[in-house]
C-alpha cells in the first residue's frame, strides 16, 4: 500500500544501490532538508488562508475571494507582496541582534519538526527523549522574541517582548505538567512509543476525566505559548501596534509570521500525538468491520486531520473569547491552571498505579 514510510525506504534502497554510502547519506540529507523547507512553505501558505477563511466563516462574511478560485491563492499573492517590500533596519536599532532574531525564530520552529511522527514509521529523528526535547527547544523561542523586542529600540516592541516573555515562561509550566500526565500513563518519553500505546484507544478516551482536564489545560497553555488570541497580549494591536515585530518589515516580518504559524502547527501536532493518538486510526472496541474501514484511511491523513482539527479549535478561540489583560492572564496561570494541573498529575499517577485506565 502507498505510504510515506514505503516511499522513504524505496528512496533509501535506490540511493544506496546507486551511490557510495557517504554520498547516499548526503543526498538523503539534502532531500530531507528540501522536503522540510517545502513543508514549511506549504504550511505557512495553507495556515494563513485557513485563518482568514475560518475568521470569515465565523463572522458570516466571504473573506478573501479575488485571487484564484475562491481566493485560495491570496496567501501566495501576500507572500509576493512581502517579497517586494523593502526590509529596513531602523536607525536606533541594534543592527546585529535585529537581523539575527528572525533566524532564531525560524531555527527553533524548524528544529521542533525533528521528532514529530507525520505518518506511520515516518519521523525525521525518533529520539528516546522526544517529549523532553520538544519542551526544551520550544522554550528557546522566547529568546528570539526578546532579542527582536529589545533590539528594535522601540517602546512598543520592548513592552510586547517583555509581556511575551512573562507569558511564555508562565504557561510553559502547565503545558509541561499536562504533557507529564501522558508520560506517567505511557512510561516513555519517545513519541513513537506514546503513539504505539494508543493502538487500542486514544489517551483522551482511555484516561478518564484527568486526561480530559490535562487536554483542556494543554490547549489553553499552548494557545498562550504561541501568543494567539485570547492571549495575544504580546502583539495586542490596539495597545502595542504589533508588539515585538513593530519595527520589522518585508521578508524579516514574513519570517516571524511564518515561524508563528509553524509553531501553532507544531503544538497542535504534539497535542494530537499525545492525546489523540497521532497517526493511529479511530477504533471502537470489537467492531471488526468498522475498524477495518478505518485502517484503510492512510496514517498521514489521520495525523494531519487531527492536527488541523486542533488548529481549527485554536482559530475558533480567537473569534470566541475577548482578549485578557496581562494581570488576568498571569493570574489565570499561577492561581488556577498551575495548582489544578499539579493535583491533576497526582490523580493521573493514582490511576496509573491502580491500573484503572483501559
Amino acid at each position, binding site marked *: 500500500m502507498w505510504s510515506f514510510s514505503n516511499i522513504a525506504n524505496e528512496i533509501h534502497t535506490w540511493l544506496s544501490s546507486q551511490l557510495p554510502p557517504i554520498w547516499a547519506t548526503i543526498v538523503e*540529507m539534502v532531500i530531507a532538508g528540501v522536503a522540510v523547507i517545502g513543508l514549511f512553505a506549504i504550511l505557512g501558505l495553507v495556515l494563513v488562508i485557513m485563518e482568514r477563511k475560518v475568521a470569515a466563516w465565523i463572522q458570516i462574511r466571504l473573506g478573501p475571494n479575488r485571487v484564484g478560485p475562491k481566493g485560495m491563492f491570496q496567501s501566495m499573492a501576500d507572500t509576493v507582496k512581502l517579497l517586494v517590500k*523593502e526590509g529596513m533596519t531602523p536607525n536606533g536599532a541594534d543592527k546585529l541582534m535585529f537581523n539575527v532574531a528572525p533566524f532564531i525564530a525560524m531555527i527553533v520552529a524548524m528544529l521542533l519538526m525533528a521528532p514529530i511522527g507525520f505518518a506511520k514509521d515516518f519521523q525525521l*529523528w525518533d529520539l528516546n527523549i522526544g517529549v523532553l526535547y520538544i519542551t526544551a527547544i520550544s522554550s528557546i523561542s522566547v529568546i528570539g522574541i526578546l532579542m527582536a523586542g529589545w533590539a528594535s529600540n*522601540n*517602546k*512598543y516592541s520592548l513592552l510586547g517582548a*517583555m509581556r511575551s516573555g512573562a507569558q511564555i515562561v508562565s504557561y*510553559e509550566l502547565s503545558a509541561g505538567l499536562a504533557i507529564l500526565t501522558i508520560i506517567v500513563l505511557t512510561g516513555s518519553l519517545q513519541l513513537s512509543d506514546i503513539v504505539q500505546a494508543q493502538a487500542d484507544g486514544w489517551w483522551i478516551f482511555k484516561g478518564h476525566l484527568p486526561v480530559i482536564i490535562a487536554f483542556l489545560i494543554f490547549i489553553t497553555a499552548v494557545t498562550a505559548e504561541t501568543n494567539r488570541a485570547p492571549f495575544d497580549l504580546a502583539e495586542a494591536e490596539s495597545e502595542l*501596534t504589533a508588539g515585538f515585530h513593530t519595527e520589522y518589515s518585508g521578508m524579516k516580518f514574513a519570517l516571524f509570521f511564518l515561524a508563528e504559524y509553524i509553531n501553532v502547527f507544531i503544538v497542535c501536532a504534539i497535542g494530537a500525538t499525545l492525546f489523540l493518538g497521532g497517526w493511529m486510526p479511530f477504533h471502537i472496541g470489537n467492531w471488526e468491520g468498522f475498524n477495518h474501514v478505518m485502517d484503510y484511511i492512510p496514517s498521514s491523513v489521520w495525523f494531519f486531520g487531527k492536527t488541523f482539527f486542533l488548529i481549527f479549535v485554536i482559530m475558533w478561540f480567537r473569534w470566541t473569547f475577548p482578549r485578557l489583560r496581562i494581570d488576568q492572564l498571569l493570574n489565570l496561570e499561577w492561581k488556577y491552571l498551575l495548582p489544578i494541573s*499539579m493535583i491533576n498529575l497526582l490523580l493521573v499517577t493514582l490511576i496509573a498505579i491502580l491500573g484503572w485506565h483501559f
Partner: protein
Amino acid sequence: MGASSLIVLIIAAVAFSSIAILIAKLVTKATTNKQKGEAIECGIPTVGPSWIQFNVGYYLFALIFLIFDVELVFLYPWAVVVKKVGWLALVEIVIFFLILFMGFLYAHKKGALKWM
C-alpha cells in the same frame, strides 16, 4: 535519520531565511529620507530612550518560574518510572509537591503574585 537531522534542519532554516531575505533585497529598491529610520510611535517622535529598566513585576514571575521549571525537570525521569516503582513513587512525589507548594504559598503570601 538520527542526530544528523538536527544539523540538516538548522542548515535548512538558515538557508531558507537567508535566501528569502536575499531575494527580497535583490528585487526591492531601497530609498532613504530623514524620517524613515525613526522608531514607529504612531506619528510622534519617541520621548526618551527605549532601553530602560523595566517593571519588576515580571522579574518576580521569572523567579517563581525558575523554581517550578527545575521541579518540572525532576518530574520527567520520575514520570517515566512511576508505573514500575508503584506506591513509593506516589508518596515521594506528594512530599516533593508539598515542599514546593510551601514555597509557592510563601510567594503568594508575600504578594509576589499580586499585580503591581
